């Protein structure tokens, strides 16, 4: 869908408490244009709960239910049950960060998926607990600095898409803010499918990733170009790649060096200064290579 056909209605209002250059703000605006006004959000503790701003004001033009970290998906199940009783078709959406999705909320999320609750779970992944001051999460990549991994994280992130696939969801997708048309299409598609859906949006964070705030979209596009993040959809267990990721998978374009992505972010600066850490840079590249090797075999 060309940009001019996207809704003019703004359901995320200007003047919020988000940092300048926030990736989540872009994700929210695009997703809300696809979801429309007949939507209820459930937001656990995460950056978005801060972005809403404080009582008696909110920057959201739709109803938002703020809930404890671990309870977001359970809350969505309850909202859906209540709406069904009232005979309403309103979209129920959980908007949660990667900490609430990968770590703290995964138990209730697994439960809601197993109950086949008709809702859309959107995880905006900034690869750390940004809201509380940049701590390591299950989504933080290998080698990244956070305040709790100050020498660089030693482990790799977990594969949330594979966890979602294990629940046999009708629709799973990944997206990123640098490709607004693609993100809009995926949210719209998820909206049209009944049952539990999962979308993960890579959402770069200027204070957490340590890059200049004007480069949020550039960083997002670079994640795709280097192959660090892949644009994919899983429908009924079939994985399909789209956009630039499809071209990379089919070998039509060569991915940019992963080092470009690493060196652009201050959170990986210790891999380059004061001495180049050849071993860890190589290990990071291997992790990405292995991921694409699996993708070529039709796996995650």
């Amino acid at each position, binding site marked *: 869908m060309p*940009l*001019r056909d*996207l809704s*003019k209605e*703004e359901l*995320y*209002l*200007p*003047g*919020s*408490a*988000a940092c*300048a*250059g*926030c*990736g*989540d*703000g*872009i994700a929210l*605006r*695009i997703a809300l244009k696809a979801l429309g006004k007949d939507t209820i959000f459930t937001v656990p503790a995460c950056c978005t709960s801060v972005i*809403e*701003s*404080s*009582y*008696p*004001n*909110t*920057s*959201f*033009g739709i109803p938002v239910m703020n809930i404890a970290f671990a309870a977001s998906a359970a809350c969505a199940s309850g909202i859906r049950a209540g709406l069904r009783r009232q005979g309403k078709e309103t979209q129920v959406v959980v908007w949660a960060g990667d900490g609430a999705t990968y770590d703290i909320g995964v138990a209730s999320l697994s439960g809601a998926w197993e109950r086949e609750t008709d809702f859309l779970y959107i995880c905006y992944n900034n690869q750390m607990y940004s809201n509380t001051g940049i701590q390591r999460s299950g989504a933080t990549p290998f080698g990244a600095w956070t305040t709790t991994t100050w020498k660089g994280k030693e482990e790799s992130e977990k594969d949330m898409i594979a966890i979602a696939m294990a629940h046999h969801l009708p629709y799973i997708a990944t997206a990123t*803010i640098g490709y*607004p048309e693609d993100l809009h299409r995926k949210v719209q598609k998820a909206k049209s499918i009944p049952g539990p859906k999962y979308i993960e949006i890579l959402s770069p964070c*200027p204070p957490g990733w340590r890059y*200049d*705030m*004007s*480069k*949020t*979209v*550039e960083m997002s596009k670079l994640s795709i170009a280097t192959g660090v993040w892949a644009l994919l959809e899983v429908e009924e267990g079939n994985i399909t790649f789209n956009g630039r990721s499809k071209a990379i998978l089919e070998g039509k374009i060569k991915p940019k060096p992963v080092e470009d992505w690493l060196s652009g972010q201050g959170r990986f600066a210790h891999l380059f200064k004061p001495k180049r850490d050849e071993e860890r840079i190589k290990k990071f590249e291997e992790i990405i290579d292995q991921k694409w090797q699996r993708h070529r075999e039709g796996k995650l």
Partner: protein
Amino acid sequence: MREIFTTISRPVKGATEKTGQWRTFKPLLDKKKCTRCLRCWILCPDGAIQRNEDESVEINLEYCKGCGICANECPVKAIRMVREE
């Protein structure tokens, strides 16, 4: 039905404050160069770029936080960032 007492926030522009005062650099739009592709409009994290009826855009300096994403992403470089006085 029993009435439920809870705190309900209402949607307003500038729920935090007039965030334009956070800015150190402000975007300047050259309307002659603008091709109305709307990339700046969709990629503004704060919705501070208004889209008019004729698909031209206008920057709302009352709420623009001055991140510079619009200037960085404009394909024809119609937006540049200048220091606030």
